């Protein structure tokens, strides 16, 4: 089995967002992590390998720092990593990222049985790359998956839908995007971290994939970013429970008009 996990390096969810002088979001001093949903993807990839054998390849489109994120996944137990790093991909939109990934996975890294991804990246919350990739590679897909099983070459996935869940059967190769609940993510062990340093991490430029900058031109442009209007602390209600509750209900009815 060849199992692929797509990961993205993102800001720590604690990160405070600062808009730089250029009107864009600044990454100065921000702690970077593996996108939380991608940890579930990597974990599921490793578990699938532990059960059915094969190798786990983690792939990402990113800059130099993304090597750290890949090493983390190798320390968790992935076998090797591929980083697509090219100046033309700085600030790439979801479409461009999926063009690069699709090219990698249909040529240089062809022959995979299953791709795991996260359901969305917590930075831009686009939730686009997995579905775009599934389309480009003509794969069956299940998004927002909370349970996964593989047997007799068939994948079974439970996915969240609005107001419930659905169980799907997918023929391989397939793409699964992970939701929290899919598994419990392991922490890298010390021997795992040591081993990860010697595991292969290949860095590819667009030219290595046979792509040009034009092939990955972004179609969406972030014109500007701004901070949302700050919420102000409102009224504080203290005192006897009955009075507080009466006041609250009155405010909700008369001032907010929401009940």
């Amino acid at each position, binding site marked *: 089995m060849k199992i692929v996990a797509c990961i993205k390096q993102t800001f720590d*969810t*604690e990160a405070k*967002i600062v808009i730089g002088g250029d009107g864009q*979001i600044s990454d100065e001093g921000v702690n970077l992590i593996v996108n*939380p949903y991608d940890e579930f993807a990597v974990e599921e990839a490793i578990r699938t390998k532990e059960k059915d054998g094969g190798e786990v390849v983690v792939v990402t489109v990113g800059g130099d720092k993304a090597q750290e994120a890949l090493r983390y996944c190798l320390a968790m137990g992935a076998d090797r990593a591929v980083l697509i790093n090219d100046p033309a991909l700085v600030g790439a*939109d979801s*479409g461009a990222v*999926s063009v690069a990934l699709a090219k990698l996975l249909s040529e240089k890294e062809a022959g995979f049985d299953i791709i795991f991804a996260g359901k969305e990246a*917590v*930075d*831009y*919350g*686009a*939730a*686009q790359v997995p*579905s*775009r*990739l*599934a*389309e480009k590679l003509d794969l*069956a*897909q299940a*998004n*927002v998956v909370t349970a996964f099983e593989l047997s007799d070459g068939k994948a079974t996935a439970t996915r969240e*839908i*609005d*107001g*419930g869940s*659905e*169980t*799907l*059967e*997918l023929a391989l190769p*397939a793409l699964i995007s992970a*939701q*929290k*609940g899919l598994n419990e993510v392991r922490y890298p062990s010390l021997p795992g971290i040591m081993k990860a340093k010697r595991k292969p991490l290949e860095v590819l430029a667009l030219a290595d994939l046979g792509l040009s900058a034009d092939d990955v031109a972004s*179609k*969406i442009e*972030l*014109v500007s*970013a*701004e*901070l*949302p209007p700050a*919420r102000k*602390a*409102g*009224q*504080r*209600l*203290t005192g006897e*429970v009955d009075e*507080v*509750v009466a006041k609250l*209900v009155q405010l*909700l009815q008369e001032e*907010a008009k*929401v*009940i």
Partner: protein
Amino acid sequence: MSIVVCAEQRDGSLRKITFEALSEGKRLAEASGETLKALLIGSGIAGLADELKKYGVDEVAVVDNEALAAYAADSYAAVLGAYIAQENPALVLFGHSAVGKELAPRTAAKVDCGLVSDCIAISFADGDYLFSHPVYAGKAIGKYKVAGPVRMATLRPNVFAVAESEGAGAVVDFAPEITASKVTITGAEMASGDRPELTEADIICSGGRGLGGPEGFALIEGLADALGAAVGSSRAAVDAGWREHAAQVGQTGKVVSPNLYVASGISGAIQHLAGMGSSKYIVGINKDGEANIFNVADYGVEGDLNKVIPALIEKLKELQ
């Protein structure tokens, strides 16, 4: 050219987000001079076209085919791809629902166009559309332009106002070649009860670690019953196993924007605020006067939720 709304129906009923998308589509069509069209896909759904006509559509294209009875991203994207190739719309709108989140990007890849997900506002000025999309879980708002000819957006539920209007309201059949899905749905489990869906609800009552245990959610349920609300949860309560993950609100849960959000026993961590910070009104019930939730709550009730919530339920019942 046109603005196309991809209508979403499940088991023969249209979703509320579809009316929101049509209303916004109409507003944009008036600004940009485009016609408004809706695409309705499914099996035995032609009758729903009448309902769509109430929102000012000039044309409803109906794809009614047994093979499309169950939604699947690949087969539906193929239909959309064929429609977009024929129609060449300037803008295609979807709901940012479970279906839209998957179908929009799959279709965008098929027709090779740009897509802005989870929009909270769209404007048209100087011949171009500008899309507002919260990034970093609402810690910032990004404004995007999309290079045409075709642009796509998914709209956050519960943000765009629904407004009925007049339109030509023609209904046409669209019968592209249907491709079978590579996915088979073998089962579905819908949450029981008649509570509204979290992302669509007008009122949400959420509970956190301060509930003290799973039984604490009985209080939240009682309050939700009295308010006709959906029930949400902080991550701490989900991690403790008191509530399922589908109820989690926040950066790694659902993003919601109800008219009223009542947070009980929730401290107001940055990741939780990311999911509910755009609610119109926020009520915080917390015994710790220093809790961060009070920095965002319109009405902050400082007190023990075990006393406040039962009294609140009583008071609300008196009013009914």
